């Protein structure tokens, strides 16, 4: 039994370490990548994976029912909120022209935005224009 606890402790420590390394890689990626949109990849995905690994490691060391539930709650909110934050950053970056359009190989959204901007000429009746909320 003692051996089992020892194994769980060691595995927990290893998971925390791996998670921290992955978070560090994400931070290095934020420095190395050129523009906002690419950086948002590095800022969100490795961080989420790293945090989940750290949480798993902590769970292996704590082993209490209530603590496990709290850790699960943290992971759940991380999964739910980090896409929202990165989406808002990416969206505002795109709309304020922080994106090197010449760098992009191609761009489906650009045509749609320009078409939508040309459109608001006064027409008869309400137009089913593209939603821009």
């Amino acid at each position: 039994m003692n051996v089992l606890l020892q194994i769980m402790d060691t595995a927990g420590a290893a998971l925390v370490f791996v998670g921290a390394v992955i978070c560090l890689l994400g931070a290095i990626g934020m420095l190395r990548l050129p523009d906002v949109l690419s950086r948002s990849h590095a800022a969100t995905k490795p961080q989420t994976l790293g945090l989940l690994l750290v949480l798993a490691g902590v769970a292996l060391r704590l082993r209490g029912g209530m603590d496990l539930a709290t850790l699960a709650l943290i992971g759940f909110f991380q999964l739910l909120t980090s896409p929202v934050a990165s989406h808002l950053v990416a969206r505002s970056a795109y709309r304020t022209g922080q994106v090197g359009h010449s760098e992009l190989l191609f761009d489906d959204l650009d045509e749609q935005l320009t078409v939508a901007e040309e459109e608001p000429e006064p027409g008869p009746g309400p137009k089913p224009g593209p939603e821009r909320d």
Partner: protein
Amino acid sequence: MKRFVTLSYRDPDLPPFSCAFPGRRGRVLDLPLIAWLTLIWVLLWSTLTWANVVTGVVVAVAVCLAFPLPKVDLGLRLHPWGILVLAGYLLYDMYTSGVQVTRQIFAGRPHRPAVIGVPLRCRSDLMLAATAVAVSNVPGGSVIEVRRATGTLFLHVLDADRPEALEAARRSVWRLEALTVRAFGTRDEIDRVSAPPPPTEPPGEGEARS
């Protein structure tokens, strides 16, 4: 006799699992929401005592009365098996995503990003949001823009040097959409995602606007 609390099974106008209070404002409480808020409250205190549960319910009801949500039927259904499959795919995809992004960070050559639009098969708001969240957590793209009217997600793809990479990103979005809908969607939406994905160039989008 006027009831102080009307439960939803007495009044078919109310959304399921909710109760309404009479009065000018006509507040409607969503019982699953209150249960969820109470659960979070108890977890944050991290001890399960009656005092915590009672104060949690009081705080949850107070929050729901002070900040009422709009009355919508989200169309949320829970399919346990679908949720398990979705969680498994997400974990696996997040692992590969981490590896892939790390490799691109240290590749040392300039990569060619692209922005692609992926039309989805479902139009419900909840499914659109859930799919966008799922897509953001896996490789291939981060969501830049969501067009609600046409149900289209716009993704930034980090390494789009080859056309296969773009095709792969599209296919992964459609696969995730199917998994998400099988976990949380209604019967009608599950039938929709069982159909093959729409063609790459969405036809009729130009006509719909004019």
